[in-house]
């Protein structure tokens, strides 16, 4: 039997909609929390009020939420052991410190610990038979007000909680549902009330009218952090970042004189320098426009070096945006060097979809992966630059520019492990830490974080241009982060001191 929450009509237990008012019954399946009695939607695993487990005992069968059978709306009862648990818990001193601050931010940590302790330490036993329960709710409700108090939330943050008509009833969602249900037919009076039902009704009423514990439940501890940064503080911080990025304009980028290439950069430059004229390099542009700002300068420096060493270059991409970037880059290089021609010195094969399976075909045949090239739409064998290059093994070096560690991992796992060649990964600084283990294990010959390596590469390759290193900016940015760290902690200490003086 299901009691319709809107009109109290008793429906057969397989009813999907109420026979009297036509409202849906599917979601009005509630389960009472074994420790605090709050009603929870049947799918909940934790009680929304006391965070205790709602995982039921063996008496109930569990099914997937999508096919929950419609059960009675009558809350299932906590057992004697549960009651003892609840009493014991209530008698125990409140766990965790009650935050004295009016900043919810500082309260967060304590809130978490309180909740954690409560939900971890109290575990209800299996549910017992209903007849054991006579007289139980009164005891439980007596115990309830002395439960560890949920930390208060400043009222100014949740004004709606104070004004809400249904204040304190949020655990008892059926009432809210009844209020929102627009049209109900006549409300039929239940024919006769059995003892259990009477008891249930009393329990329900007592929980509903008991303001004390529910008031705490109404102040749901939502981890809303007070805004730490005012609008002005934020603007100031952003201005500092902007200034840091513009430092070289004012300082003339003096620290770039201190620039000394790191070992990994030097070794890559040496590797490329040692390539004989006419050897071939495969470059994969596995990055999109978003991170192009970081990777492009390094890609340009390496591309120029390769062009100057008269090495054949074949470019491809596993990122849809990467092909456009490769083309743009090579247009720039070809514009600088008149005898650097498409099809003879370099070629762009195109976009290779489906990284894993696609990359694996590179080991067997380039022609299978790319039917035609990207720019001239000719078959690969028609391009002079592709002479003697049929699979990835025929290349002397493979360079991958990437903004996603997954694509580099695919190169290592799908291609490099199958056919041996030296693989250089030139990646964004953001993903470099994730690839370091592969460099340590020797699977990557070189691993360079792009951020400010373009200048270092130019120095190492001897192709130095009067281009911008923008070195000062990075130093300034480091300072900005340091200032941020100091500022936030000074602000924090000041708030704490103020609170302490208020407390006294």
């Amino acid at each position, binding site marked *: 039997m299901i009691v319709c929450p809107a009109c109290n009509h008793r429906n057969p237990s397989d009813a999907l909609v109420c026979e009297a008012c036509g409202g849906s019954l599917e979601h009005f399946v509630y389960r009472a929390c074994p420790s605090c009695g709050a009603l929870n939607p049947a799918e909940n695993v934790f009680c929304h009020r006391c965070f205790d487990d709602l995982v039921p005992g063996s008496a109930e069968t569990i099914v997937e939420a999508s096919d929950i059978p419609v059960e009675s709306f009558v809350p299932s009862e906590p057992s004697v052991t549960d009651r003892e648990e609840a009493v014991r818990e209530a008698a125990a001193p409140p766990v965790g410190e009650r935050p004295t601050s009016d900043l919810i931010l500082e309260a967060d940590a304590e809130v978490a610990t309180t909740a954690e302790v409560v939900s*971890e*330490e109290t*575990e209800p036993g299996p549910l017992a038979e209903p007849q054991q329960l006579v007289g139980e709710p009164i005891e439980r409700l007596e115990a309830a007000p002395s439960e560890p108090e949920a930390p208060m939330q400043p009222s100014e943050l949740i004004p709606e909680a104070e004004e809400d008509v249904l204040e304190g009833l949020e655990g008892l969602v059926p009432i809210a549902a009844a209020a929102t249900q627009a049209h109900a037919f006549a409300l039929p009076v239940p024919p006769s009330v059995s003892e259990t039902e009477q008891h249930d009704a009393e329990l329900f009423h007592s929980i509903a009218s008991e303001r004390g514990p529910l008031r705490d439940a109404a102040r749901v501890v939502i981890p809303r952090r007070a805004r730490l940064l005012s*609008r002005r503080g934020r*603007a100031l911080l*952003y201005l500092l*970042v*902007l200034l*840091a*990025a*513009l430092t070289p*304009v004012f300082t003339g980028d003096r620290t770039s004189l201190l620039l000394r290439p790191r070992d990994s950069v030097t070794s890559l430059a040496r590797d490329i320098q040692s390539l004989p004229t006419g050897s071939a390099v495969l470059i994969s542009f596995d990055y999109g426009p*978003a*991170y*192009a*700002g*970081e990777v*492009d*300068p390094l890609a340009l420096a390496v591309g120029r070096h390769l062009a100057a060493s008269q090495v054949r270059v074949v470019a491809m991409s596993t990122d*849809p945006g990467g092909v456009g970037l490769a083309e743009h880059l090579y247009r*720039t290089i070809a514009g*600088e060097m008149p005898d650097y021609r498409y099809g003879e010195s370099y070629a762009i094969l195109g*976009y290779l*979809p489906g990284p894993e399976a696609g990359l694996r075909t590179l080991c067997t045949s380039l022609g299978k992966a790319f039917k035609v090239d990207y720019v001239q739409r000719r078959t690969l064998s028609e391009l002079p630059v592709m002479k003697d290059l049929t699979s990835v093994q025929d290349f002397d070096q493979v360079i991958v520019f990437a903004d996603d560690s997954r694509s580099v*991992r695919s190169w290592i*796992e799908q291609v490099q492990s199958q056919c041996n060649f030296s693989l250089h990964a030139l990646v*964004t*600084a*953001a*993903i*470099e*830490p*994730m690839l370091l*283990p592969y460099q340590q*294990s020797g699977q990557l010959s070189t691993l360079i*974080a*792009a*951020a*400010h390596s373009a200048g270092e590469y130019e120095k190492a390759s001897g192709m130095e*241009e*009067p*281009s*911008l290193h*923008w070195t000062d*900016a*990075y130093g300034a*940015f480091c300072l900005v*982060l340091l200032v941020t760290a100091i500022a936030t902690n000074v602000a924090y200490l000041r708030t704490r001191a103020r609170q302490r003086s208020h407390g006294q």
Partner: protein
Amino acid sequence: MLETPANLLATLPPNTLQIAGTWVAALLTLATLSYVFGGNPAFRLAEHLLVGIAAGYAAALAWNQMLWPRLQLLVAEPATYWYYGVFFVLGLLLLCRGSKSVSVLGNLPLGVLFGTGAALALGGGLTGTFIPQIRASVLSVNPADYGEGSLGWAYVIDPIIVVAGTIAALTAFHFGARTDGRLRALWRGLVRAVGGVGRGLITICFGALFASAALSFFAILNSRLVFLLRDWLKLLYTGRP
């Protein structure tokens, strides 16, 4: 239809499009950067333009690179490429999701997608990550393997940290929380202590990744400013563009 304006554009002086493009790019860059000082109409314009262009560009790419070539193959050699036909029909069923009444037809292609994805995730997670990462954490912690005498003792610290750290970090994710019985409580305490160390290591890892990402983002910001100052305003002199 679109050829005419394209031809018309081709008759313009060679640099016109490039110069116009640089101006458009610079103005859009400024509009986007203006978000730093709070939301404003210029940023909202840039945002909507980006959302529209990205979707249009991706859809065009999907059509040109994925669908059109396969459709051609299917029409040319239906006997060899019949399976493309199957997926095209499934794809059309997926499009039925857009309409309320026939939405249920989309369940079949979604079943195919979820099944394939689940197998890829399971196989990849197992053979690509789980087993290789466990193998990678198997390091000798015998000082004799790393050098003679105190040198070996110095070098063995790293593998010990890696192995113990991996175990601790893995423990930090343990879900179970049974407390009944004294033995269980002991186990619980052990898991908590080791997991606490693991959480510390995870936080170190987060700190390092946070810093690296910050550097990455700053490099991107620099490149935008260099574009504005050098390519647009021509304030900075460099030998090459």
